[in-house]
């Protein structure tokens, strides 16, 4: 067969294959379309009954039987509802989910489902504090997909059942995670249930990526005991990313013990460090930094000047007076930014 004949015969074969495929897909869709109308109606009905059950106007006598026959629809609906409610309503719904073996279906999805189902299963299992669920989530820490591993880790952390931090990090394979923000969720959950393990990640030996995660989590945990350690990191020779995160955490914690480190950082050569220090100073709210922030209104970096003006507004009357005096000073960076921020906030 000549090359030319190969081309047109090959193309004809590909064309036949593609048209046959789409025709098959159309037929499949026609069948599914017929069934989906009924599914949508069923879903609406179940949603209505579930809401009534949750708020207590339906005693659920026949509900379980109905839901058992429509587990794929009802399981999905109930999980969506669980996120939206709290307290006794959530507890009732979780009991119903367990009675319908939804956790077991989720564990099956976690082991064998396609990528989207494994991700959703890993997230949904956090509502079930059960040894089988915990075991399944721990196995999922070795999943080939990073999102599934992270979802399982976040769920375990929320259940207070995460393995020790070193083991958790090894199984999550952080080198493959590219600094995923979802890892921050894991650490934040861990900080709520096991703050000591998170604080232990601030040691010298831990890589910067782990320190950043720990600093973020501790900053949001309200754990004032960590302030000295965080402050030391903020003024150490750690990388810029670590020091930025440390300053951010000090700002979130708002503890006055963090102020010396914040003040020292106002004089850093890196504009991002200075800017973050300014933000932290405003949050801590100590009036003794007003003179330094006043000076920062003339910083070479626009963002540092802007954040300094905003921070002064957070420092009560002394801050406001400093900003107003800068605004009245004539021309230059400091008066301009001061005037603009005062005008933006409509402060007279």
């Amino acid at each position, binding site marked *: 067969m000549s090359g030319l004949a190969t081309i047109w015969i090959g193309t004809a074969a590909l064309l036949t294959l593609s048209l046959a495929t789409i025709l098959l897909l159309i037929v499949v869709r026609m069948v599914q379309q017929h069934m989906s109308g009924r599914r949508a109606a069923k879903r609406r009905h179940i949603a209505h009954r579930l809401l009534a059950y949750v708020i207590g106007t339906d005693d659920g006598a026949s509900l379980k039987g109905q839901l058992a026959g429509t587990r794929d629809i009802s399981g999905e609906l109930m999980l*969506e509802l669980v996120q939206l409610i709290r307290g006794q309503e959530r507890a009732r719904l979780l009991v119903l989910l367990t009675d319908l073996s939804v956790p077991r279906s989720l564990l099956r999805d976690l082991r064998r489902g396609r990528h989207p189902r494994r991700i959703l299963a890993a997230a949904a299992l956090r509502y079930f504090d059960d040894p089988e669920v915990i075991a399944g989530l721990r196995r999922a820490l070795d999943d080939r997909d990073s999102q599934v591993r992270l979802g399982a880790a976040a769920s375990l952390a929320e259940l207070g059942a995460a393995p020790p931090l070193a083991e958790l990090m090894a199984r999550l394979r952080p080198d493959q995670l590219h600094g995923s923000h979802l890892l921050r969720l894991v650490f934040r959950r861990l900080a709520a249930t096991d703050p000591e393990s998170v604080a232990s990640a601030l040691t010298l030996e831990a890589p910067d990526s782990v320190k950043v995660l720990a600093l973020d989590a501790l900053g949001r945990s309200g754990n004032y005991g960590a302030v000295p350690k965080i402050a030391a990191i903020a003024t150490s020779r750690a990388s810029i990313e670590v020091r930025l995160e440390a300053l951010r955490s000090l700002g979130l914690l708002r503890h006055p013990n963090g102020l010396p480190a914040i003040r020292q950082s106002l004089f850093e050569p890196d504009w991002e460090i200075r800017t973050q220090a300014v933000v932290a100073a405003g949050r801590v709210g100590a009036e003794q930094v007003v003179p330094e922030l006043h000076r920062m209104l003339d910083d070479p970096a626009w963002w540092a000047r802007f954040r300094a003006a905003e921070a002064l507004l957070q420092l009560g009357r002394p801050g406001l007076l400093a900003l107003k005096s800068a605004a009245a000073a004539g021309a230059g960076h400091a008066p301009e930014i001061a005037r603009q921020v005062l005008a933006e906030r409509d402060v007279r």
Partner: protein
Amino acid sequence: MNGLPWAPDGMIDAVWIISLVILGFGLAQSAMNLLLLGISLVTLVRQPPLPSLALLWGDFSEVAPPIALIVPAHNEERTIEESVRALLSLQYPEFEVIVVNDGSQDRTLERLIESFDLRPIVRPYDHAVEHKPIRGLYGASQYRNLFVIDKERGGKADALNAGINFSRAPLFCAVDADSILEADALLRVVFPFIDQPLRTVAIGGTVRVANGCKVRSGRVIEVGLPQRLLPLIQTIEYMRSFLIARLGRSRIGALTIVSGAFGLFRRSVAVAVGGYSHGTVGEDIEIIVKMHRYLHEQNRDYRIDFVADPVCWTEVPTTLGTLARQRIRWQRGSLETLFRHKRMALNPRYGRIGLLGVGSILVVDLLNPIIEVLGYLLIPLFWALGLLGADFMLAYLAVNFAFGVCISVGSLCLEELELRRYPRAKDLAILTLAAIFENFGYRQLNNFWRVVGLFRFIARAPREWGRMTRKGFKGT
């Protein structure tokens, strides 16, 4: 000696060479498209989109960075209110909407002021990139995250630059004023920035054809197909372009464009490259190539990518005249970018983006239209004169027509397997017919317009956007 006594041997050789070049080019293009189709299929099968974000919304929201939606608007009086209301109701934890009124001559600004009770405001901003002077800034007490910049006319790139300066979020999303974003589009398009925050620089989402859809209050409430042939064919064309070309190219590190209608960018990198460039009609492709160049030259590990699941709907031209102007402009934009960054084309120093990305602009946008149009004229002529045999003609028809149908139908199969936006089996059947018809006339017309665009670029003809008569999105 040849079988045609009137044709000298030299002529036969020349015909044969020309014909082989034309056929070879077509084959190479087809092979590339097939490869991209395969890559896209594997990508979507391995990581299909999440059907619903309801279960993950809480987690994503906690770590989702703030976004500034920058909406350049020029003479959008008819649809601007509806568009802005729809943007304000997007499902995202923290975002601001910055409408940039770029010297409109109609009542775009007045409409915004009336609809949202806007008042003049002062808001300090960093003059990081260049743009024409701002005439006024407006804010709304009822919508704390809505801002309007009124500025002198400077074009879309200029308007986007004004928005970049004004924004305070680490990410900005460039959105056309007539684009309709799906409610969860921001959550989906931001995911790479959550997943790989250190690397991700720009992400494009899918743009789909809104003609024929039922739209209410700036939302697509029912997906449908256009009634008219021209937008129907564009539906398939967009599907092929986004699901195969963009998805496939992004996987091989050769994505050179993030659609101007819907793209998410890291503000600091946009500022580092000087924002959007003036003096080009292809500002969306140019900024991406500029970013690639800058990041390569900085030796940074970065990601510029496309994700299929976040969707933006847009109205497409319904008349040949408007479509022609649009395609000529797009071609011109590609060529302007190519020549601005010509040192990258086929340059191994720039890795895959140089070889396959900018290199493909050279091949696909510059050379291919010329060769295809020559083929339409010469191959049938050579065959009619007996200079080419039936085998060659069949091979040529296969490569230039039948293969195109395979690729278009292939994109439809991808759509049906993993995305399924069209609700009815009948829609699929209609789109299949459109995929066939697309390759008999429409594609050829497009190549002709691209050649026109090339000549206009060479002749440095005045750039024109033309006017697209917007029908606006009427409710049901």
